[in-house]
Structure formats: structure tokens, C-alpha cells
């Protein structure tokens, strides 16, 4: 009887829809971008293709600046840098960024922002942000937050798109995407972009330059079992505050050329074996001249106390190999994988001018290569239909050149996903992981103690979800304990000598008025055992929708005020709104106003001459106009 009813239901629903309405539903469902979510990797925030279009997220930083538990600050080189609530971090070892299967984070700083931070999202399909240790599935270096960008699928684009953007700050960006399904089973997507970004500001009535010229190229060639990705990013920019003691350098420039090739292949009929190989290379040059001297941490206690010029030409290479096998045994889903990573850091040239004398200083230290071998095992065991237990172990072996000793790490995680009702679920993880030292943190460590230890993280998280037909409410709580936290003190990076604890609560609510009209509310608050030098709470309210030929959005991002060393940073209220007019199916015009109240988040910096702390705005008010033509 049940089967009869089910069959009747299926066939009646099939024939009640017209082919046209089914096509429309298929298109909108695809734009929800749910196909790659892996709930076992952590607590996930999804930015779907639909969200990216409706909210006019033009670049990665547009998304990162609103994420809960983060503040997207600007570092002294004028590069975006996400900081964990309450703490301003000048490097970001706990974040890892991927485009498809390739990690784009810099070998040197673990930050992708110099080369990829302003990457236009024209060729990105959707973005997943995992709060949790996902290297248990992905291999390689461990981390705490994993940001995964997925490029558009060539077969689903199958056309050309031209995007041209101008903004009130005189910035411009022009992009071209071409995707084609070939007559065999191969397809490809190519993306080119050229951007000129203007971002100047002032300090004590002197101009701080932060303009940049950027070029990007991305190629994705794929068939059912193989993905070949090639990426190139090229940036030439002003050095903003740079390393100048008086905050305003005479002149300075930062250039980076970053390229990689990544190949992923699935084997066996069920694609249960996955192998990937990637090579990456970054060439980075930095120059600065400043009459009021340059502060270089590695020489803080040396005889070089009158540095007025610095020049460096660095090269970083990375080789990754990953092999995994998934298999099922009774109610177990098991993933076993091996990953190997080899990172090299080469100083081609590093000179300083001290007391009008040119000195070739070369390497700051002899730690210039790191090999990471990992073995990982994940088992998700379905106890019953609504209860999944997850267990992970990962063994990392770090082999390092130079003075920094080799190390082994044993990491583990246990978790559970419980969905007793269709509209209620719980997810929880207990994780023990580490965050390894970086080439940059060792270079800029306190000169008298460069032997930094890895950071040890111990965290417990729990997420509850309640849904109704139109709404979804998420509550996520985390308790984090960190030992040997690497902190950027004024004399260089140091390991904090005591345990740091932090607790956080995120409340996230979504209400869907219809398929195309959505309201999202978010609020988070954290506590920190240390003196905070960044915002500790925040949230957002955003509304996006569609009416006839128009799509529109409005949002208000809030980050709380804070005080540090007598300096007050006021509340940040980033109010933005925008609309897109779809002139035809293939042509659209978008207008977007960002940070209209001109109350952005602020970064704490220090003037080494006056020893005074001060705040600087992370971004300005901006209005942009975008033309998109599909052909």
C-alpha cells in the first residue's frame, strides 16, 4: 500500500510540473550550491552562487569582513588580514585557503591575501567556510579555519562573460570568463582579470599610498574523473605603512607573482581513490626607503640601528601530493589518506642600507625548508539512522632545515551529528590540534629567542539547528584553549607563556520570505582571558531579494568598539546596499554602495617614533557600478 501511494505521489508530482518550471527549479536548486558541503569537516558557513549574486559579493574580502568571530583588518603593508575576535594578528597561521583542491595560502605567511585577497568572485561558484580542523580530511598542515572556494563548473557555464566594474575610489576591474563543453567529455573554463585598485589614506596629514595593480588568470580543464587547474596572480602595490618607524615611508613597493598547477584524478568506478598533485611558486619582492628609519625586527638588537632602505627578492615553492581511499564496512564510512608537502623558502637577494652603507644581509636564519608527511584516518560510524559518530586521527611529521627542530604531532578529533527530528539537529566536536610555526613567524620572532614552539589548540564546539518551513536558527558555542600561542609583540613574535582561553557564541537566523527573498541575522560574542586589542562581538543583518528584473540587497555589519593602550576604536557599522537591473537575460547593470556611513572596522598600529598607538580605518566608503554581459 505504501509503495503504491509513494509511486502515485512520485508520478503525480512529475506530471503536474511543466518542463519549463522544472528547468527553472533545476537552475535555482543548482544555485543553492549544496553539493560539496561536508558536514564532517566542521561547522560550515555557506555562501552559495545565489547569495554571491544577490548580495553582490565582488571579492573574497567582501565575505570575510562579515564573518562571525573575525575582523578583517588591514596590516602595515595594506593587505587584508583576518583576525580572530579580540586579537589582532599580523600573520594568520590558523587559516587555510583553497581554490578547489589547491591551497592558495602563501608558503611564507599562510595568508593568501597579498596575491589572492582581492580576487574577483566572477569565476567562483560558491564558498564554504569551515570553523573546525578540516585537515583531518584534506591533509597537509593543520589549521583551525578552512576557507574553500569552488570555481564555476565549465559544463554549467558553457558561454562567455564579460564583467567591467568602476568605483568612486577610481578603482576598476575588468574580467573575462570563457567556458566550453567540448565534443568529447572534456570541458574547460578560463578566467582573466585586470584590476587597478585605489586605496589611499592619511596619517598626520601625510599620504599613505596603498594602490595596487592586479592581474589574474585561472584555467580549469576537467572531465568526469580528472581536474587540471592552473592559477596565476600578479600584484604590484604600494607598501602602505611598510616597516617605517614614523608610519609614513618615503616610498615602497611590494610585488608578487604567484602561480600553481594542480591535478586531481579519481580512480575506480566509484571514484573511491583520489590522488592529487600540485606545484606552486611565489616570487615576492619588497623595497622601502624611509629617511626616518625602518624597523626590522631581526636586527632589533644588532648594530644596524640606522636602516633607511630595505630590498628583498624572495622565492617560495611548494609541492603537494595527496592520496586517499574511501571505503564502507558495515555502518562505517572510512577515509584513509597520505599527504606529503615540501615547502622551500629561498632568499635570492636581501639588502639593507644602514648608515648610508649597503649591506647584503641574506637569510635571517637557516630555517628555509619544511617537509610535512601526514597520515590521516577518518571513520564515521552510523549508530542509527539519526546518529553519526565521527572519529579522526592524524599523524604529522615535520622535517625542518636549519636550527628549528623536527617534530611529530598526533592530532585527534571526536564528534557526533544527531538529527532526531527533520527540523532539529545537534553537531559537536572535541578537537586536539596544533598550528605549526611559519617561515615568517620565525623570521620575525624575538631575535633572542627564535626557537618558537608550535601552538597547541584544544577546543570543544557544539552547534544546534532548528528549522521550520521557512526559517533556520543556528546556535554555535565554542570553548578554545591555546598553549604556546604565537603573539606579535612589538619586539617580534613570541610564544605566550600561559594558557589562553576563549569562549564564543554565534547565533545565526535565516528567514526565507520566498525562494528569492531572504533575511539573515547574525550575532556573536566572545570572551578572552587576555587584554583584547580587537573587537570581541559583532553581527549582521542582511536582506536580499528579487522583483521582476531587479535584484537588491541591503546589509548592516557591526563589530563592537574596543580600547587598547589608551586608544579607543569606535563601533563599526558597515551599511551597504545595492541593486542589479537585468536589462535582458544576458545583460545586467549593478550599483553597489559599501560602508555608506563610513564607519569601518579599525586596526591598532604603533608609531615607533612617538611610541604611541593609533587606529586606522580598514576600508573606505565606496560606490561601484558593474556591467555584466553574457554571450
Amino acid at each position, binding site marked *: 500500500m505504501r509503495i503504491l501511494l509513494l509511486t502515485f505521489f512520485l508520478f503525480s508530482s512529475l506530471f503536474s510540473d511543466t518542463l519549463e518550471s522544472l528547468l527553472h527549479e533545476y537552475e535555482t536548486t543548482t544555485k543553492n550550491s549544496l553539493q560539496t*558541503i561536508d558536514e564532517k569537516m566542521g561547522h560550515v558557513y555557506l555562501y552559495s552562487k545565489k547569495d554571491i549574486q544577490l548580495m553582490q559579493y565582488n571579492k573574497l574580502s567582501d565575505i570575510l569582513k562579515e564573518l562571525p568571530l573575525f575582523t578583517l583588518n588591514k596590516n602595515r603593508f595594506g593587505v587584508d588580514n583576518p583576525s580572530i575576535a579580540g586579537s589582532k594578528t599580523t600573520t594568520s597561521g590558523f587559516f587555510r585557503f583553497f581554490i578547489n583542491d589547491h591551497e592558495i595560502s602563501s608558503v611564507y605567511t599562510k595568508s593568501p591575501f597579498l596575491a589572492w585577497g582581492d580576487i574577483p568572485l566572477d569565476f567562483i561558484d560558491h564558498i564554504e567556510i569551515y570553523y573546525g580542523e578540516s585537515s583531518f580530511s584534506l591533509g597537509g598542515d593543520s589549521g583551525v579555519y578552512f576557507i574553500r572556494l569552488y570555481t564555476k563548473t565549465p559544463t554549467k557555464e558553457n558561454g562567455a562573460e564579460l564583467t567591467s566594474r568602476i568605483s568612486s575610489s577610481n578603482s576598476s576591474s575588468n574580467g573575462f570568463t570563457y567556458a566550453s563543453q567540448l*565534443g568529447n567529455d572534456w570541458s574547460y573554463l578560463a578566467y582573466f582579470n585586470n584590476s587597478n585598485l585605489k586605496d589611499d589614506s592619511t596619517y598626520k596629514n601625510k599620504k599613505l599610498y596603498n594602490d595596487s595593480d592586479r592581474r589574474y588568470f585561472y584555467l580549469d580543464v576537467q572531465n568526469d574523473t580528472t581536474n587540471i587547474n592552473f592559477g596565476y596572480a600578479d600584484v604590484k602595490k604600494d607598501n602602505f605603512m611598510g616597516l617605517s618607524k614614523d608610519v609614513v615611508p618615503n616610498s615602497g613597493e611590494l610585488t608578487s607573482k604567484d602561480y600553481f598547477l594542480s591535478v586531481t584524478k579519481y580512480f575506480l568506478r566509484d571514484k573511491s581513490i583520489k590522488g592529487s598533485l600540485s606545484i606552486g611558486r611565489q616570487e615576492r619582492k619588497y623595497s622601502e626607503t624611509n629617511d626616518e628609519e625602518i624597523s626590522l625586527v631581526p636586527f632589533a638588537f644588532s648594530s644596524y640601528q640606522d636602516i633607511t632602505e630595505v630590498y628583498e627578492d624572495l622565492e617560495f615553492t611548494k609541492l603537494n601530493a595527496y592520496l586517499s581511499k574511501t571505503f564502507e564496512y558495515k555502518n562505517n564510512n572510512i577515509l584513509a589518506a597520505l599527504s606529503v608537502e615540501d615547502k622551500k623558502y629561498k632568499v635570492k637577494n636581501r639588502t639593507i642600507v644602514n648608515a648610508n652603507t649597503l649591506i647584503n644581509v641574506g637569510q635571517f636564519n637557516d630555517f628555509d625548508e619544511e617537509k610535512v608527511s601526514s597520515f590521516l584516518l577518518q571513520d564515521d560510524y552510523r549508530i542509527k539512522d539519526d546518529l553519526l559518530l565521527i572519529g579522526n586521527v592524524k599523524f604529522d611529521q615535520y622535517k625542518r632545515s636549519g636550527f628549528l627542530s623536527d617534530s611529530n604531532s598526533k592530532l585527534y578529533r571526536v564528534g557526533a551529528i544527531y538529527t532526531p527530528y527533520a527540523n532539529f539537529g545537534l553537531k559537536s566536536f572535541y578537537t586536539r590540534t596544533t598550528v605549526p610555526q611559519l617561515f615568517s613567524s620565525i623570521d620575525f620572532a624575538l631575535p633572542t629567542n627564535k626557537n618558537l614552539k608550535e601552538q597547541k589548540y584544544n577546543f570543544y564546539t557544539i552547534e544546534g539547528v532548528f528549522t521550520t518551513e521557512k526559517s533556520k536558527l543556528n546556535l554555535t558555542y565554542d570553548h578554545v584553549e591555546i598553549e604556546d600561542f604565537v603573539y606579535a609583540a612589538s619586539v617580534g613574535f613570541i610564544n605566550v607563556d600561559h594558557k589562553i582561553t576563549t569562549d564564543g557564541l554565534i547565533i545565526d537566523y535565516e528567514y526565507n520570505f520566498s525562494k528569492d527573498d531572504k533575511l539573515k541575522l547574525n550575532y556573536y560574542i566572545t570572551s578572552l582571558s587576555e587584554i583584547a586589542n580587537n573587537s570581541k562581538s559583532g553581527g549582521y543583518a542582511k536582506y536580499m531579494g528579487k522583483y521582476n528584473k531587479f535584484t537588491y540587497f541591503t546589509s548592516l555589519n557591526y563589530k563592537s568598539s574596543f580600547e587598547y593602550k589608551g586608544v579607543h576604536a569606535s563601533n563599526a557599522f558597515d551599511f551597504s546596499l545595492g541593486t542589479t537591473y537585468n536589462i535582458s537575460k544576458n545583460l545586467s547593470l549593478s550599483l553597489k554602495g559599501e560602508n555608506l556611513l563610513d564607519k569601518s572596522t579599525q586596526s591598532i598600529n604603533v608609531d615607533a617614533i612617538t611610541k604611541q598607538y593609533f587606529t586606522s580605518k580598514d576600508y573606505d566608503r565606496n560606490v561601484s557600478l558593474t556591467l555584466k554581459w553574457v554571450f
Partner: protein
Amino acid sequence: MKIIILILSILSFAFSSQYTFLIKEYDKEIDLEAKIVAKIAKSSIKDEVRLFIPNISSMEKKVYSKYFTLGDSCKSSNFIFVKKADDSIKSCPKKDKLFFTNNYRKLLSDKKFYGAFFWNKSRPNIVFIRKRLDINHIKLPESYAQFVESFNEK
């Protein structure tokens, strides 16, 4: 207590359309694809449709079997949906069978296909070639006219 749990269960099934956690393999897209192909196949063939998809994945098999009887081979089926290249199709007799593809270029270059379901300019599309519909004696519903294209084929 049992009554409360029962009420909660009924309420949760009745009112929940948002997902909580996606712990099962996500199949909504494949499901809609299968629905669309089923609609096309059932409008093109008067008899019972026996579908064959070369190199079918286990998830496709699970989803498509909700709407079709699946054939074991090309020979034993009357509707062939080619999503991936497969040499066995080349030797499969064309008589009493309809061939459908997900690749517009394949549709244009290979006359055995009478239609295609594919993406173009980021939107899903369906195209049937009029002459090939006539050759296969297929009379589609009038609402399908927007999907039929005429090409000058010899």
C-alpha cells in the same frame, strides 16, 4: 511523553523544508535532472520506457530508478541517455531506440541523438532537432515547441 514525541515528529515532518545537517549524499540536483529526463522520455515514447545510462553512478542509479525502469544494457533499453563517453554505445543497434545527450556539440555532430539537455550561458537548456524527431516518428506535446530547433541537415 509518547504523544508529545509523536506530535513533535509530525510537526517536524509537516513544517520542515530547510535542512539541518546534510549528512546524506545530496541528491536534489540529480533528482531534478531525472525528473526532467523522465518527462522528456515519457513524452517521446508511447511504450514503457527502459532507460540506459552508460557508466551510471550508484547515486544516479538510486535516483533514476524512482522514475524509470533501468535497463542493464543499451540493447535491452529503448531510451539511452549518454552523459559520459562510452564505446559500447557505438556498437549498439539504433533500431527502436532514442538517443539523448547532455552535450550540445555531440547533438550537432552525431545524428543518432534526437535531443540534448545541457547548460548554455549558465542556464539549463533542452534542444530537439526537428528533422530527427520526424525520422524517429516522435510527436512531442505542443508545449515543447520552444525546445525544437530546425537545422538544415542533409
